[in-house]
């Protein structure tokens, strides 16, 4: 790590002190500066005073719904927010993502995965690391020349498939809700296009996945949306 680099600031907003302690430990040992808040009120203060680069938000807060906190923050800040949640709250997740959350993690989570999500969120918000060539696993997309390769072999994508893939590449590592993708491609609300989107995703997978029936790159987040995973590049 570059010692002179400015540390990124992370705000942990969770009512469980033990979770906060553990997250702080994980984050500090990975060179983040950590602020903690246990309630929505403290959280809002911390956002205004400390200007965090990422917020980890637990939806179950004692004084206010985490969703309400998110909406308030979004009124004046574009800071990336990663939601921490428990399983079985997919519909809440979708509304959180549609209200401006950047990503989510289901508890209990793997800290390596969490760090990866935080890196993705910061990279997107600071618009760094926008290389003209995207690589994940066996997939390689050269955005300038519009060439897609799987295992070094070129694959032909239709215009819709390519624009779909481009949306995912621009948001690589982030979960995208059905409605977000629909809006981006067709500028239309979700319900009408859910089926069509599903078909396009299936077609795209056949071209960019090694095993289309068990996708590894373009994965489904059941009940929420899709995510383009950043896998180690295979040689």
């Amino acid at each position, binding site marked *: 790590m570059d010692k002179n680099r400015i540390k990124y600031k992370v705000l942990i907003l969770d009512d469980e002190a033990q979770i906060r302690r553990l997250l702080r430990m994980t984050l500090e040992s990975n060179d983040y500066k950590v602020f903690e808040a246990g309630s929505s009120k403290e959280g809002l203060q911390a956002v205004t005073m400390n200007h965090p680069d990422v917020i980890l938000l637990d939806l179950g807060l004692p004084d206010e719904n985490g969703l309400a906190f998110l909406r308030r923050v979004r009124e004046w800040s574009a800071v990336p927010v990663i939601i921490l949640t428990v399983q079985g709250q997919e519909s809440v997740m979708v509304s959180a993502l549609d209200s401006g959350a950047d990503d989510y993690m289901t508890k*209990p989570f793997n800290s390596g995965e969490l760090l990866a999500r935080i890196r993705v969120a910061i990279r997107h918000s600071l618009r760094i690391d926008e290389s003209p060539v995207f690589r994940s696993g066996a997939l390689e997309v050269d955005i300038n020349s519009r060439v897609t390769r799987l295992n070094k072999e070129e694959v032909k994508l239709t215009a819709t498939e390519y624009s779909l893939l481009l949306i995912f590449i621009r948001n690589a590592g982030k979960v995208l809700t059905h409605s977000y993708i629909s809006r981006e491609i067709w500028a239309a609300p979700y319900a009408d296009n859910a089926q069509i989107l599903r078909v396009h995703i299936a077609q795209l997978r056949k071209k960019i996945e090694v095993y289309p029936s068990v996708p590894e790159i373009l994965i489904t987040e059941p009940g929420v949306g899709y995510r383009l995973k950043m896998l180690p590049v295979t040689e």
Partner: protein
Amino acid sequence: MLRTSLWKNSFRSDFIEYLIAVTVIGATGAICFPLRQIIGYQSIGLILLMMIAILSLFLGGWPLLLAAVLNVLILDYFFQEPLFTFRVENLHDLFANIADFIIACIAIILITRIRKSRAFLIKSKENQNILFNFLESLNDAISISAVVEIAQQSLKKQFGLDSVIYLKENKGRNLSDLPLGDTLLHTHAGFTVASSLFTDALAVKDYDQGKPGEGMFWFSLRDSRDLLGVIGVTLKPEQKDTELIMQLRSYITLLASTLGREIIIETVREKEISAQSEKLFQAILNSVSHELRTPISIITTAVDNLNDIHTSSDPEKRLQICNELEFASLRLNNLVENILDMSRIESGMLTLNLQYCDIADMIGSVANDLKSELVGHQLSIDLPDSLPLILADISLIRQVFLNILRNAIMYTPLGTAVEISSGKPEKDMISVTIRDHGNGVPEDSLGYLFNKFYRVPGSKSGGTGLGLAIARAFVEAHGGHLNAFNHPEGGLSVSISFKTQN
């Protein structure tokens, strides 16, 4: 009802019988009157006596007695000198008349006795039949309530009586105020009478007195061992006669012995059930506490090892310990998820958050999640592109596939294959089959596979027997079906079918 009509019948026949007796004797006298010179009045006396003998074949006692009196009078008045008077001058005639009358009377007495005993035989045969039929129908009854119902119907049919039964409380020596039979007959006052009869019957061992009260008649129900309760029948005081009461009593004795039998059977059954549920509870406690304690003790040990500077300074060992920690917490999490799911199902609070869902896509994502657990198995997925969508709660259906796949991974040897395929869509159903290549499940266990806390005997430790039960509950909440069968070529097949949406 039965008894009034009988009484009416016997009255009518009596009246006709008197008429017949008078007519026959009178007519015989009239026919014989012109012949008295030829055959002599002694012969006519014999003819009349013969007529009485013949009449005795058909008539009852009192009409016959009338005939006998009439016989002597006619003989005396019309045939014996001096004619047309009741005077008897001849000592010989007086003896003849007395003998005549005595013979007639003896015949009458004999014939009446024979008839009475025959009638008694018929009657007791009838009673026996009624009791036998009752017993036969009681034998078919296999529960207390069935016995009560049959007794109630039978009492109504045979005697025209409604009945209510109170049984002894399970524990203690009191009568339970829960009425059985015709519950409309239950009144507080009636129950008070029943309880006081019950107390009396408890005090005196052979107490079998009926007790009137509240427009009913109450009898104790007692089998050979114990006092069981009290039955009340709607017997009016004016209907009450000894014979009917005796008949009712034998009826009730029969009922009591059957009830006694059923009560014993039911007690035994209850004991068995409670013993079984206790056994089940113990098994659940054992398996759940084992499943909870194992990962906790793994975590504790791992933490101890990490605290030990000798162990944790070796990066390879540290990695190994951390892997153990991760695995233990995953296992704990699965268990908690299962218990939470189960309590959600049990509490009836399962509400479905329905969305359109692509099964193939879902299975792919589940397989992706299970990647680390699937390392030792070869998973193959063979699903057509165009599986119809289902309307489902995605997180529940995910859990279904997770649980079934975990099961397949856990109970089959390493290196074997797990295959996911789909049958042809039928009408509005699609099915997905998950087949493993393990040893299958013994046929007699198949039926229990989806039961809560059931584990196939002899299967390896780990697991609570909740996963498949949850899977079935979730699938059924969607109107689908979950079935398991042994594949003809080995391995267990679990097939899930869903309603499709078009």
